[in-house]
């Protein structure tokens, strides 16, 4: 037993010493590597900044001629710069990347066995906004690793080719789909040209797909799809989808959304849907919704009454007037010292926030 202890102690002492040496070794190695990389990247970084400052008109050949090891050290900075640039400077820098063969390498890496390499390659192609890469990136939407699919979706959004819309929508219809919010954002990035595809996908059998398309249509302000969205609000079998329809109809800001939203406020509808419809009416900005929202202040459901009050607040003077009337009428009926009812409390809260906002606006206006 003692012999075993002694051996264990010796081994332990050795491992402890090796660990301490390893800590020191890692630090030395990192410092040396950092210094070397900083030295290598210094020249290319200056050249890059001068190139960008010159709007990409001069210096492209110098950047292309930078030796590979120095470019590798400067590449993360160059890619970060790419994301911040627009217009001519962006196109010029992309051209430098293309001439250096970065896109070709990335396209090749999309077939790599390593998922990290595939994801990195997709990220680079998205940063370069390379339209030729769209078919390959669409193929990546069925990659067996979710992290690769996620990067591919983001890259497609950055490229913004509406031809990818169906493939992105299809990537939502699987057992482990890409995150809905990411897909929505990407579909919005594809622009108004994707509206027809998104509108058609409102008939998709998968509820998640319909909800994502509704969100994308709302953010795109797709007024041409108002009737289809209203139909989803009326008829869809999933409550979450109907709530998404109500929310996004409000974002469209078009008169055609008013009637379906008012219908969704019917007491027979679920509370979550009614609350969403009340909020959407506030977003819509239609003063004609004021009477119906004022009626909802006394609703038994907290969320419905709360949203109605804040929707009235967003409707400007007409809504504020209705809120003030609700408070005043209760004061008249119950007396000034009576405890306010739930409807009056909601109205007071919204009115107070409305006044705070107005006061601040006036101050800013006066300051300007």
């Amino acid at each position, binding site marked *: *037993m*003692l012999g075993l*202890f*002694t051996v*264990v*102690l010796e081994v*332990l*002492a050795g*491992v*402890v010493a090796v*660990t*301490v040496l*390893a*800590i*020191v070794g*890692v*630090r030395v190695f*990192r410092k040396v590597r950092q210094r070397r990389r900083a030295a290598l990247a210094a020249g290319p970084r200056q050249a890059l900044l001068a190139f960008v400052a010159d709007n990409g008109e001069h210096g492209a050949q110098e950047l292309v001629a930078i030796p590979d090891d120095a470019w590798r050290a400067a590449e*993360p900075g160059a890619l970060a710069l790419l*994301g911040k640039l627009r217009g001519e400077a962006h196109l010029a820098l992309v051209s430098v990347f293309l001439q250096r063969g970065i896109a070709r390498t990335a396209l090749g890496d999309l077939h790599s066995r390593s998922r*990290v390499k595939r*994801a*990195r390659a*997709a*990220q680079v192609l998205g940063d370069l906004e390379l339209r030729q890469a769209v078919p390959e990136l669409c193929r990546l939407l069925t990659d067996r690793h979710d*992290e690769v699919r*996620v*990067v591919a979706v*983001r890259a497609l959004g950055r490229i913004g080719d509406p031809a990818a819309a169906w493939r992105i929508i299809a990537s939502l219809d699987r057992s482990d789909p890409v*995150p*809905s*919010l*990411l897909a*929505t*954002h990407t579909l*919005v990035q594809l622009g108004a040209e994707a509206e027809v595809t998104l509108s058609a996908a409102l008939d998709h059998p998968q509820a998640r797909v319909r909800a994502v398309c509704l*969100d994308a249509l709302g*953010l795109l302000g797709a007024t041409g799809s108002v009737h289809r969205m209203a139909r989803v609000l009326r008829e869809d079998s999933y409550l979450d989808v109907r709530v998404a329809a109500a929310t996004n109809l409000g974002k469209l800001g078009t008169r055609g959304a008013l009637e379906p939203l008012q219908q969704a406020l019917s007491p027979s509808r679920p509370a979550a849907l009614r609350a969403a419809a009340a909020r959407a009416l506030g977003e819509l900005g239609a003063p004609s919704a004021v009477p119906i929202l004022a009626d909802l202040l006394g609703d038994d459901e*907290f969320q419905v009454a*709360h949203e109605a009050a804040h929707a009235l607040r967003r409707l400007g003077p007409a809504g504020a007037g209705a809120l003030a009337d609700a408070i005043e009428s209760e004061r008249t009926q119950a007396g000034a010292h009576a405890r306010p009812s*739930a409807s009056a*409390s*909601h109205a*007071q*809260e919204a009115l*107070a*926030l409305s006044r*705070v*906002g107005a*006061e*601040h606006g006036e101050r800013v206006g006066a300051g300007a």
Partner: protein
Amino acid sequence: MTAEVIRDILRYTDVTIFVYFIALNSSYLVLIVLAGLEFGRHLRRAPFAGADDMFRSPLTLPVSVIVPAYNEGPGIVAAVTAMTALRYPRYEVVVVDDGSGDDTFERLRAEFDLVEVPRVVPGEVPYHSRVLSVHVARANPETLTVVRKTNGGKADALNVGINLARHPLICMVDADSVLDPDALLSVAKPFGDDPLRVAACGGVVRIANGCKVVGGRVVDVRMPRQWLVRIQVVEYLRAFLMGRTGWSRLGGLVVISGAFGVFRRDLVVEIGGMATDTIGEDAELVVRLHHHLRRRRQDYRVIFVAEPVSWSEAPSSLRVLGRQRRRWHRGIAEILRKHRGMIANPRYGRIGLIALPYYVVFELLAPFVELAALVLLPLGLWVGAVDLAFVWRFVLVAYGYGLLVSLAALFIEEVSFHRYPRWGDLVRGVLAAILENFGYRQILAVWQVRGALGALHGRRAEWGVMHRTGFDTGRESAEPVSVGVDR
């Protein structure tokens, strides 16, 4: 005959304790290795993680940051100013003044031009105190809300904050925490990446003592000046950063620090908010969340992100440290007692079969075993059950293995995040890992045993008062912060 039996019992007990120490440190080592793998995975993916896309997306889930505050006057304005300047597309800060006796509220009112608004508190989660008034910042009523209420404790203050939170994600932050600018973005990101499954996400808490804090941001990370706090730095690295990352990778995370964690609001409301009958309300919430979601057979994840971080001030005196550790251990004991039905219950999967039994054997009982070893080993030596050669080897192997575990944590930190850039800090870290074994661990065990016994006897929990030294702000004299989270 009797003496021989006693000697045999002591001999076997000493060997059992030795095996226990080996198992305990081996389990730590496994968690540290898992954390190392996770950090490697995280760092390889950083270039395409999409944090900037998340920041730019109009669809990023908005967050309500809930800040319970009790007598935080000296530091509250700087803390709230920093929290309202985080890099995140849409969020609100809800400060809940839990009946402070100092000028916490007055300072906030003066700085942010607060204006009182009538607000209906929904009561979706129960709270026992009385809300006195609700205020918003005149310049930005949607971003900052300050609630005044009668004193009811931290859990009760959080429940009021949860009721008033308007966004689908809630982030609980201590009022003296200093968050890295991207901290909220990182901790909320898993909810965007996997919105259907992620139920909660914890962020790492590091020690801010000794660091330079400018404008509510940690700008220069340094080791603290006192050895007591340096030892805690190593301890935080080993237990919080590595331990929790390891558990997250195993799918068995049961503790998210109340100092920095994000939860889905709907789920927190479903389970009734924070429990007010336990002193470890943060960990209790996570265990209850597991209980709820496992019973519902829902596919979900509770995860931990290792960077960026929240920085907190650690106790720099034995008295305050003792109170903190008694409270922490009492919290563990209370939670395990409250949820004993989950322990070793296959219905709760890895939580029931691995995580909670581990907490019983290697967290709750560890200080008892440590103290037992301190008593029984000399006793065994005295009655002749073990000889001196055995005892010194036993002690060296047990503590040597503990040292190796701490060094492994320092190694992983050096490979991955290397937040302490100075050579001197590295040396101090290694020395602290050694010094931890001489007195610190033993006194810690005493405090922890007292905390666990306090839970057993149902004695009233004490929050106490912590005198804070404040952070190094780069000026000649930092404003001393008298009272903080350690209430």
